[in-house]
C-alpha cells in the first residue's frame, strides 16, 4: 500500500512550466510505497527515490481516490529525507567510496546509522491557489486507512486555518515589490497560537524541499517563518482566484492595484514611482494592524499595589510566542544590548527593537503607557486605579489583539475564576454508605471570587465602596454590577446538595450550582473516598478471588473484580473493555462467584454472547466456577414458554444464550426476573436502532427487583463515539441523554470536526462506567507473562456437526472391517478428515472455489463456528493495528482461508507453504517485517513456516488446528516469540469442544502415556488403537 505525501516547494521546479512565467511556490504531491529495492550507491546527483511511486501510478491512484485535479502538473524536486545507511549488495563496504543507502519511510523503525540525504522525487505540482482547493478535498479523519500520510492531515489543518482567516476577513491587500498580493493578518492571539502550534508540530516532510538546509535536515529550528509563508501563499492564492476586480470610480493608481489583485501574476501595471507610492501606502496602512512574525513579543505585566498604597505597577518585558510563560523583564532586554537574548531555548534577535516596537503598538491600544516611555530604557510604570481597571476590563484584550501580551494578577485574570462563584465543603451524613445518588449531603458553602472566599456581608461592604476593583483578604478582585444581586438570590434559595450534585461537580469542569460556578469543592474523608473511586482517580479496592473460585486472579484482575463490585453497589452498569487476552471472562465469572459467596446471588443472571463463544463460556465456567449452576438457553429443546423457562431455571445461577435467541425469545425471556444481564462482545449492540440492541436494552431495564447490567468488549469503545450511545443506553440510560441530543452535542462535533473539547467532556461522562486496560499498560505488564496462551473453545455449526457425526459413523464400521494392513491408513485418514471438518466443511468436502467467487465466500463464515470465532478475534487484532501469524497443517485450508480473509478485510494475506519458492518466501517475510503498511495477517503452513523464520512483528499467533506434538506448535509460536519481539505475544489455540481436537488437547495436557507415545512417534501409534479406543477418541461428545 502506498502513502501519499505533500511537500512545500519554495520555488517552482525547473521545466514544469513554460518559460517566462513567474516562478511560484507550491505543493508537490508524491507517494512512497514498499517494495524490495537495492540500496542506492554513491552517485553525483541526488538519486531517484527508490520507493517513490512513478507519475502514472500516482495519477491513477489520485484519480481512483477522487484526488485528481486538472491543475496538477508533473514536477520533480530534491527532497532531503532521513535515510538509512546500507551497503550496496554485492559490494564490500570498503569498496564503496561514499554514502550508500535507502530513504526511510513513515513508520519504519529507526536505524542506528541515520543520515539526511537528498533524493529526487517525482510527483504532481499545484500552485498555491489550486493547492488550497485540493487541500479542501482532504477528509477530516481516517488518514492512515485512506493511504494518506499524516503530513496531509497537517496540511488539512493549515488549510482550515486559512479558511478561518478568510472567513474572519483577517487579510489586507499589499503592493510591495511591484506586485499586488493578499496578506493574511496573523496578529490575533488565537492566530498566533495556531501559527505556533502548527509550526511546532509540522511533520518534517513538509519542509523536505526547503532551500534552508537547517529546515530540510530537521535540525532544531523554528518553522514559524516557513509556516507563515505557506499560509501567506495559500491565502493569497485563494483570494486572488476569488477576487473580481472592478471597483468603481478608481484613479489609475488604484485601478491598477485592483486589476493586479485578481491577476495570477499580480504584476502592477504602473511605473516605478507609482509602484513605490502604492508600496509605501499599503505598508503604512497595514503596519499599525499587524507586526512581523517574530519568536517573541512585548508583554505587560500588572501588579497589585503594595499594602496601603494606591498605585498599580505595570512592568514591561518580552514573552516567547511558543510558551507565554517564558518571560524576561525589560531590564534584561536592555541589558542584552546588541546581542541576542535567549528565552529558554528560543533565540531572539534584536530584542530591544522588538520590545520597543511592541510598546509602540501598545500605545495605540492603551494610551496611559505613553507616560511610562519617557526614559531611554523604561522597565515599568505606575497606573492609577482607574487606569488599572481600564486595562483589566477592556484594554487587555485590545492589547492582545495588536500582538502585545498582557499578564494580569491571578485574581483578575479573567475567565470563570474571577467571577462570583461558590466554594463548597461537603461530607456524607453520619449513617450513609454513600451509594444512593439522590442522597442529601451535609454541606457548607461560601462565595468565592478570584480565589478568595467571602460571605454576603463582605459582598455588601465591598459593593458599597463603588469601586470596580476592590481588595479583600489581601487579593484584588473585580466586582461586577450584578454580583450582589445574584449572591442574595442564592442565599434566599437555600438549595439542597445531593451526592448526585457532588458527582457532577467533581466530574466536569465548569459545573454550576443554581447558576453560580463552583470554584472550589472540598469533600470530607468519607465522601472523598466515594468520589475518588467513582471517578477512577483511585481504583476501587481490589477484591481477592472469592471462596469457591477455582483459579487464581492476577492483581489487575482483582482490581477489575473490585471495580465491578463497586459499580454494582451503586446500581450502575459497567463496561469491562479490557484488551483481548486479559481475562474478561475470568473477571466476570469471579464477580458472579463473589455474589454467590456473599449470598447475594438469588435470581438467575442472563449472559448473552455470540453463538461462537457460548462453548467457551461453558468451558470456562465449568473450570473456574464449579459452584455456579450454568444452563444454556440454546438449541431446539430449549424451554418455549414462560412457565417452562421458570421451571428449567430453578436453582440456576447463570443462563447462557445467543444474541439471535435473545431477540427471538425476547417475550419469554422478559418474563423472568433476572438479577442481572451481561452482554459479551458488546459491540454487537453498537447500532442503537437494530432490533438486537433494543432487545438487549429492554432486558437490561429493572424487573420486579433491581437488575445489574454488565457489558464486556475488547474493542476501544470509548473511541467509538457513534457506538457509545447504544452502549450507555443499555448500561445507564440517563448518562448521555436521548439520541438526538447526543448526536447534536457529541457525535457531530466529534466525528465531523474532531472537536476535542466535546470528546473530553464525553469521555468524562462515560469514564466512570468503562474500565479498559491494555496489555501495554505499565501496571499490567508486570502482571502478565511475556507469552500468554489462550484456549479458544468453539463449537460446531450445524453443517459441521452433521458431517462430523456421519463421517465417524461411516468410518468406524469400515475400519473395523478393514484388513490389518490398511487399518492404519484408514485411521489416519479419518482423523485428518475430522480435523478438516472442525476447520470447515468446504475443506473436508474438497470444495475448490474460484478465489473471486464472492457468493461462495459470503456464506463461508456461517458454515464454520471456528471461522466465526477466528473472525471475531481477528477483528480486534486488526482494529488495534496489530499483526498476526496464522498456522495450519493443511495447505488446502491455507488457500481457502487466504481467499476468505482477503474478501473479509480487503487486504492482501500472504500464504507461505511448501510450494512457495525461496525468493517468494524471502519477499513475504521481508514485507511482513519491514513494510510500514504491509499486510497485518500472515498465513503459514505449520511445516513450511514453522521453522527458521523470524517474524517478530507479529504479536498474535493463531493455531487454527491442533497438531499432536506440542513441540511443533511451540516451534511455530517461536517465529514471533523470540529475540527482537518487543511486545507480549498472545497465542490463540483453537479447540473444537467435544471433538477429536479436544481429546488431542487433553492428551497433550495430561501428558498421558498415550501422549508420550504420540510425542515420540508422530502418528505411528494410531494404527495400534483398538476400535474402542478409537471410538472414544473421535466420537463427538454432547455435553
Amino acid at each position, binding site marked *: 500500500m502506498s502513502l501519499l505525501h505533500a511537500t512545500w516547494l519554495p520555488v517552482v521546479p525547473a521545466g514544469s512550466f513554460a518559460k517566462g512565467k513567474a516562478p511560484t511556490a507550491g505543493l508537490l504531491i508524491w507517494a512512497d510505497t514498499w517494495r524490495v529495492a537495492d540500496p542506492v550507491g554513491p552517485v553525483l546527483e541526488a538519486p531517484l527515490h527508490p520507493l517513490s511511486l512513478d507519475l502514472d501510478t500516482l495519477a491513477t491512484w489520485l484519480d481512483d481516490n477522487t484526488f485528481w485535479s486538472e491543475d496538477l502538473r508533473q514536477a520533480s524536486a530534491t527532497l532531503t529525507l532521513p535515510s538509512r545507511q546500507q551497503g550496496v549488495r554485492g559490494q564490500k563496504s570498503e569498496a564503496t567510496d561514499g554514502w550508500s543507502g535507502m530513504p526511510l519511510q513513515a513508520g519504519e523503525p529507526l536505524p542506528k546509522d541515520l543520515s539526511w540525504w537528498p533524493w529526487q522525487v517525482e510527483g504532481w505540482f499545484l500552485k498555491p491557489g489550486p493547492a488550497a482547493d485540493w487541500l479542501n478535498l482532504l477528509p477530516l479523519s481516517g488518514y492512515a486507512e485512506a493511504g494518506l500520510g499524516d503530513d496531509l492531515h497537517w496540511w488539512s489543518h493549515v488549510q482550515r486555518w486559512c479558511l478561518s482567516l478568510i*472567513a474572519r476577513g483577517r487579510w489586507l491587500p499589499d503592493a510591495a515589490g511591484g506586485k499586488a498580493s493578499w496578506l493574511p493578518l496573523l496578529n490575533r492571539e488565537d492566530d498566533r497560537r495556531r501559527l505556533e502550534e502548527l509550526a511546532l508540530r509540522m511533520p518534517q516532510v513538509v519542509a523536505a524541499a526547503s532551500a534552508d538546509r537547517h529546515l530540510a535536515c530537521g535540525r532544531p529550528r523554528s518553522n514559524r517563518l516557513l509556516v507563515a509563508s505557506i499560509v501567506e501563499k495559500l491565502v493569497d492564492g485563494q483570494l486572488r482566484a476569488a477576487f*473580481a476586480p472592478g471597483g*468603481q470610480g478608481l484613479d489609475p493608481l488604484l485601478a491598477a492595484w485592483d486589476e493586479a489583485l485578481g491577476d495570477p501574476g499580480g504584476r502592477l501595471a504602473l511605473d516605478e514611482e507609482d509602484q513605490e507610492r502604492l508600496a509605501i501606502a499599503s505598508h503604512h*496602512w497595514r503596519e499599525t494592524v499587524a507586526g512581523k512574525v517574530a519568536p517573541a513579543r512585548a508583554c505587560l505585566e500588572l501588579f497589585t499595589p503594595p499594602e496601603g498604597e494606591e498605585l498599580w505597577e505595570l512592568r514591561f518585558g518580552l514573552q516567547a510566542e511558543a510558551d507565554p510563560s517564558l518571560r524576561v523583564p525589560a531590564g534584561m532586554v536592555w541589558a542584552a544590548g546588541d546581542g541576542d537574548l535567549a528565552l529558554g531555548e528560543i533565540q531572539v534577535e534584536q530584542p530591544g527593537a522588538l520590545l520597543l516596537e511592541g510598546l509602540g*503598538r501598545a500605545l495605540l491600544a492603551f494610551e496611559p503607557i505613553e507616560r511610562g516611555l519617557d526614559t531611554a530604557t523604561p522597565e515599568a510604570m505606575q497606573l492609577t486605579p482607574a487606569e488599572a481597571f481600564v486595562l483589566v476590563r477592556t484594554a487587555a484584550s485590545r492589547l492582545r489583539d495588536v500582538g502585545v501580551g498582557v499578564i494580569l494578577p491571578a485574581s483578575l485574570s479573567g475567565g470563570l475564576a474571577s467571577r462570583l462563584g461558590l466554594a463548597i465543603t461537603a461530607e456524607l451524613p453520619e449513617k450513609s454508605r454513600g451509594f444512593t445518588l439522590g442522597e442529601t449531603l451535609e454541606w457548607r458553602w461560601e462565595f468565592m471570587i478570584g480565589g478568595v472566599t467571602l460571605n454576603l456581608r463582605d459582598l455588601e461592604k465591598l459593593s458599597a465602596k463603588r469601586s470596580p476593583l476592590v481588595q479583600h483578604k489581601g487579593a484584588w478582585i473585580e466586582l461586577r454590577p450584578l454580583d450582589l444581586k445574584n449572591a442574595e438570590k442564592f442565599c434566599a434559595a437555600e438549595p439542597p446538595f445531593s451526592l448526585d450534585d457532588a458527582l457532577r461537580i467533581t466530574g466536569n469542569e465548569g459545573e454550576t450550582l443554581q447558576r453560580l460556578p463552583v470554584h472550589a469543592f472540598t469533600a470530607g474523608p468519607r465522601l472523598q473516598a466515594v468520589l475518588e473511586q467513582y471517578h477512577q482517580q483511585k481504583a476501587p479496592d481490589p477484591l481477592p478471588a472469592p471462596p469457591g473460585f477455582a483459579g487464581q486472579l492476577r492483581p489487575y484482575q482483582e482490581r477489575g473484580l473490585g471495580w465491578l463490585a463497586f459499580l454494582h453497589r451503586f446500581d450502575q452498569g459497567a463496561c469491562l473493555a479490557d484488551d483481548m487476552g486479559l481475562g474478561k471472562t475470568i473477571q466476570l465469572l469471579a464477580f458472579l462467584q463473589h455474589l454467590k459467596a456473599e449470598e447475594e446471588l438469588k435470581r438467575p443472571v442472563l449472559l448473552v454472547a455470540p453463538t461462537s463463544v457460548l462453548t467457551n463460556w461453558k468451558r470456562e465456567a465449568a473450570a473456574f466456577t464449579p459452584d455456579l449452576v450454568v444452563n444454556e438457553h440454546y438449541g431446539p429443546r430449549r424451554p418455549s414458554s414462560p412457565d417452562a423457562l421458570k421451571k428449567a431455571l430453578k436453582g440456576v445461577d447463570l443462563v447462557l444464550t445467543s444474541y439471535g435467541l435473545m431477540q427471538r425469545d425476547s417475550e419469554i425471556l422478559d418474563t423472568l426476573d433476572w438479577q442481572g444481564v451481561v452482554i459479551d462482545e458488546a459491540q454487537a449492540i453498537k447500532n442503537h436502532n437494530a432490533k438486537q440492541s433494543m432487545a438487549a436494552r429492554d432486558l437490561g431495564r429493572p424487573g420486579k427487583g433491581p437488575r445489574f447490567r454488565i457489558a464486556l468488549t475488547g474493542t476501544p469503545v470509548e473511541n467509538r463515539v457513534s457506538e457509545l450511545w447504544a452502549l450507555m443506553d443499555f448500561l445507564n440510560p440517563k448518562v448521555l441523554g436521548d439520541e438526538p441530543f447526543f448526536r447534536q452535542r457529541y457525535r457531530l462535533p466529534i466525528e*465531523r470536526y474532531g472537536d476535542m473539547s466535546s470528546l473530553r467532556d464525553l469521555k468524562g461522562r462515560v469514564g466512570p462506567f468503562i474500565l479498559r486496560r491494555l496489555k501495554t499498560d505499565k501496571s499490567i505488564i508486570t502482571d502478565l507473562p511475556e507469552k500468554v496462551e489462550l484456549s479458544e473453545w468453539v463449537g460446531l455449526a450445524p453443517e459441521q456437526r452433521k458431517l462430523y457425526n456421519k463421517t465417524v459413523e461411516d468410518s468406524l464400521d469400515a475400519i473395523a472391517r478393514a484388513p490389518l494392513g490398511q487399518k492404519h491408513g484408514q485411521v489416519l485418514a479419518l482423523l485428518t478428515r475430522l480435523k478438516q471438518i472442525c476447520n470447515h466443511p468446504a475443506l473436508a468436502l474438497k470444495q475448490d472455489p474460484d478465489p473471486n467467487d464472492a457468493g461462495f465466500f459470503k456464506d463461508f463464515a456461517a458454515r464454520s463456528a471456528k471461522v466465526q470465532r477466528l473472525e471475531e478475534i481477528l477483528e480486534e487484532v486488526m482494529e488495534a493495528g496489530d499483526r498476526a501469524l496464522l498456522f495450519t497443517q493443511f495447505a488446502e485450508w491455507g488457500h481457502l482461508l487466504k481467499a476468505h480473509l482477503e474478501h473479509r478485510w480487503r487486504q492482501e494475506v500472504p500464504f507461505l507453504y511448501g510450494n512457495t519458492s525461496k525468493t517468494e518466501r524471502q519477499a513475504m517475510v521481508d514485507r511482513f517485517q519491514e513494510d510500514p503498511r504491509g499486510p497485518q495477517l500472515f498465513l503459514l503452513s505449520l511445516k513450511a513456516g514453522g521453522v527458521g523464520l523470524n517474524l517478530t512483528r507479529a504479536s498474535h499467533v493463531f493455531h487454527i488446528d491442533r497438531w499432536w506434538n506440542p513441540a511443533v506448535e511451540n516451534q511455530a509460536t517461536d517465529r514471533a516469540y523470540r529475540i527482537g519481539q518487543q511486545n507480549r505475544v498472545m497465542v490463540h489455540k483453537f479447540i473444537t469442544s467435544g471433538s477429536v481436537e479436544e481429546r488431542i488437547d487433553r492428551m497433550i495436557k495430561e501428558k498421558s502415556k498415550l501422549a508420550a507415545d504420540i510425542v515420540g512417534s508422530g502418528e505411528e501409534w494410531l494404527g495400534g488403537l483398538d476400535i474402542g479406543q478409537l471410538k472414544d477418541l473421535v466420537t463427538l461428545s454432547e455435553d
Partner: protein
Amino acid sequence: MTITPGNHNGITTQLGDQGLGQQPWWVEQWMELINGYRFKKRLERAWAYAREGNVLSIRFEGRRVHARVQGSGEDPYKVKLWLDVLSDDDWGYVLEALGQKARWSAQLLAGVMPQDIERAFAASGRRLFPFKLQEVRSECTCPDKINPCKHVSAVYYLMGERFSEDPFVLFQLRGRTRAQLLSDLAVQRRALLAKKASEAKAARKADGDGAPLPSAADGLHNPTPVAIRDPNRWWRYDAALDPGLVVITPAMEGDTGLDEAGPLPLAEDGRFPEAPRQFVEHLRSQGAGFSTAAMATAMAAGSNQEQPNDSNG
C-alpha cells in the same frame, strides 16, 4: 502612471475650500505653514491650480521633491523642492535626543509619527518641519521671477497630502530615510545599552557581589526541547483540530482587517473623488463574499465521509 500634458490629467487636491477636516497632525502643520504665507492672492491661484490637476507628478527622489506642473506653456514646468539637510553632526544630536525617550523609537518602529518629534530636533537647535515657508527651497523652470511661483505653491499643497501617505518622507527631506533613521537609532541604542550593561557590571563588581549577569533562563522553567529533534515529528502528526477551527465563523461586527486598518492612506486624485474609499468598499464587499464561500467550503469538508450508520436502522 503615464502623464500626458493637459489640464485634466494631473494630480489634484482633496483639500477643498472647507478646510482641513480630520488630518494627521503633520499634515495640519504643513498646511498651517502654507496658509501663513503672506501673498494670499498667489496662494489662491496655486490652490486652484492644484485642484484642477495641473500638477502632473510628484516624486521624492532622495532629498528632493521633483514635480512637473502644467503651466500656460506647452511643456510642463519642472519644479524642484528641498529643505536644508541636517548635517551628520546635527543628526547625531537628534538621534541622541530621540534615544532619551523610548516612546519615540517605539512609535517610529510601530509606524506612528510622534506628535512631539520636534522636541527631539530642538535638541540640536534644528527643526524637522520648516518654520517658515521661506525655508522650503524651490526652483521652477517657469519664467516667473517670483519665488515661490504659483507652480511651486501648487506643489506645496499636494505635498501635504503626500505626508499623510508616508509621514516619514519628512525625514527623507532632512537627509535620512526612515530605514536609515531606524538603523541609526538602533546603533545608537545598542551603544547606549552596552554602556549601561557595562556600568551595571562595574557597579556589581564594586559592590563585591560577584554574581554573574542575570540570564534570561534564571528563575524560569525551560520548555521541552523543540519537537523537531524528535523522530516522531518527521512524518507524524496527530494533533486534534483546534477547537476554534471546528466551526468556521465570520468576523464580529467591525473586526475584519479592513475595519481595523481604517481608511487607506493614499492621497486622492481630484478627478476621482473618493477613489480610496471606493477601493476599500469594493474590497469589503468582495471580502464578505470570500467569507461566505470559505464558511461554505469549511462546512462541506468531511461531509462525504459521514458514516451511513444513521440510516441502516
